[in-house]
């Protein structure tokens, strides 16, 4: 058996896989944040709560209606996305004319309410979600649980599909045009407010989808998104929100860096992303893929 810098390969590749999985969630969540920010000019602090709602939706669907994981993968994002649309119609749309900070505060308040209500109803401790594809492969240098491999692949597909949808389709072109100049796009007869509502719904659905994918790996709990969203903010600062591809690359990259830190210097694994953020702020304040605006 060979060793790399005194680290057994099982540990190294195991942590790299974990990092890749974390990175997959960072990528999906920061992508949703970037899409929402582009259109609504709101940093969606509720993103972590909506990710949690996705996981809960799948868990409840399984528990009460016996809906299998694969159906939840489609159903849960739709349900949570619709709730998101209602929230946008009721609350968010009233603050677009104000400073960005009010959107941040409003969505922070929404997150507190949602997470508080879930805690009241289901407590703070987690509930397990059965693994839909148990088993795994022995790759020789490491053991790969099938579901974890699936999550990484699924996240890649979701990210690339979002990128394709925004950069290569007609609806995506409308979206980008409306981000650039909403008044002009409206003059062409496109219903921009509806486009904004839809964007929010899609961004929220993306967070919920990540939540469903996370359910079998993590415990389903009311606070599962609370700390995650804070890390994702750092990811967004590092990557900059200008580019879709940038969010994806930054998300996966930072997950890997975190995984490597866990192998070589475990005490810093929680903080390494924030250290990277500090370094990026020093070297390239606009973020790796951002434009200064």
């Amino acid at each position, binding site marked *: 058996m060979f060793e790399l810098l005194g680290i057994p390969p099982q540990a190294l590749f195991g942590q790299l896989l974990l990092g890749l999985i974390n990175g997959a969630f960072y990528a999906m969540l920061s992508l949703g944040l970037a899409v929402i920010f582009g259109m609504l000019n709101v940093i969606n602090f509720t993103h972590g709560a909506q990710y949690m709602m996705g996981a809960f939706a799948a868990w409840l669907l399984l528990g009460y209606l016996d809906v299998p994981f694969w159906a939840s993968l489609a159903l849960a994002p739709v349900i949570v996305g619709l709730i998101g649309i209602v929230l946008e119609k009721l*609350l968010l749309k009233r603050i677009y004319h104000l400073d960005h*900070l009010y959107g941040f505060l409003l969505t922070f308040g929404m997150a507190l309410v949602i997470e508080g209500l879930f805690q*009241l109803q289901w407590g703070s401790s987690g509930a397990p979600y059965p693994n839909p594809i148990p088993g795994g492969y022995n790759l020789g240098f490491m053991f790969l649980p099938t579901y974890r491999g699936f999550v990484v692949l699924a996240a890649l597909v979701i990210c690339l599909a979002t990128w394709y949808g925004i950069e290569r389709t007609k609806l995506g072109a409308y979206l980008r045009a409306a981000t650039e100049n909403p008044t002009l796009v409206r003059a062409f007869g496109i219903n921009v407010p509806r486009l904004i509502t839809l964007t929010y719904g899609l961004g929220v659905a993306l967070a919920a989808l990540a939540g469903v994918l996370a359910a079998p790996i993590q415990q389903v709990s009311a606070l599962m998104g609370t700390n995650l969203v804070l890390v994702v903010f750092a990811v967004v600062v590092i990557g900059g929100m200008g580019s879709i591809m940038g969010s994806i690359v930054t998300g996966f990259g930072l997950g890997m860096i975190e995984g490597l830190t866990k192998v070589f210097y475990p005490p810093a694994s929680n903080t390494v992303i*924030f250290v990277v*953020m500090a370094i990026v*702020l*020093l070297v390239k304040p*606009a973020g790796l893929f951002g434009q200064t605006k």
Partner: protein
Amino acid sequence: MTSQRVGYAILIILALVAPAIAYPVFLMKALCFALFACAFNLLLGYAGLMSFGHAMFFGMAGYFYGHVVKAWDMSPEIGLLAGVAGAAALGLVTGALAIRRQGIYFAMITLAFAQMVYFFCVQAPFTGGEDGLQGIPRKALLGGLIPTKNDLVLYYVVLAIFLFGYAAIYRFIHSPFGQVLKAIRDNEQRAVSLGYEADRYKLLAFVLSAALAGLAGATKAMVQQFATLTDVAASTSGEVVLMALVGGLGTIIGPVVGAFIIITMQNYLAGFGQFVLVIQGAIFVVIVLAFRKGVVGEFAEWWRRRRSTTKPT
């Protein structure tokens, strides 16, 4: 101007007799949070910078105070100084990095740094991790002149600290420095074109705000005799934003009112557990949608309108 003086005189008399009506420990906690909220508001209301990570200064100062007084066995004055200096130093480092971005990014960066400090505190040996730093002794102040074991005596000490901090903020805001800050808040490009180095003013405001938040945090550790992870957590950063928002951003007395409202509410709702979070979240939503000026701001406007309608007669 005179009505303002009368108002302050009434408030100070109220503060002096308050322990006769309310429990001193509760009042001291509220005063610490009031100073914390004022420090936060100095940054947001007058420099236009929203820090969503102010708990790192508040909480770390508590740890510094506890470590100096308990582990190093020094006097509480040195503990308070250590809290303020430590928070200011932390403010200098994080502020220098955070002011490189503006607006919403600034909020996210400060939030991220606060989270980093939180994770650091979970692991660092001197904070006691999940248990917190407990049993910080209450030692007499001024070399034994002021015994602080008595809650009532300590209340007046805390009141003096609060008034000192409040007066300092009042002085900053009404100084030329404060005027430049407001100019930068309202139009940064113009302030820069007039020759003011905006970044240096912002950084100074950030460090001052951090130092005062540190004073509040160290005082709280002195009163409660412990420092815990809650004080450095993101939820505390959110709470201070809420206090300033409820009271009224950009009004000097607003955060004090907001802090008392929120602390009183937490006190009465303590038995309801997670309901406090839900209610705090709901207050955020309602204030942002309907009462952006906060209690003091809305009151001031109502007062002005009332005066302007009665004047012509």
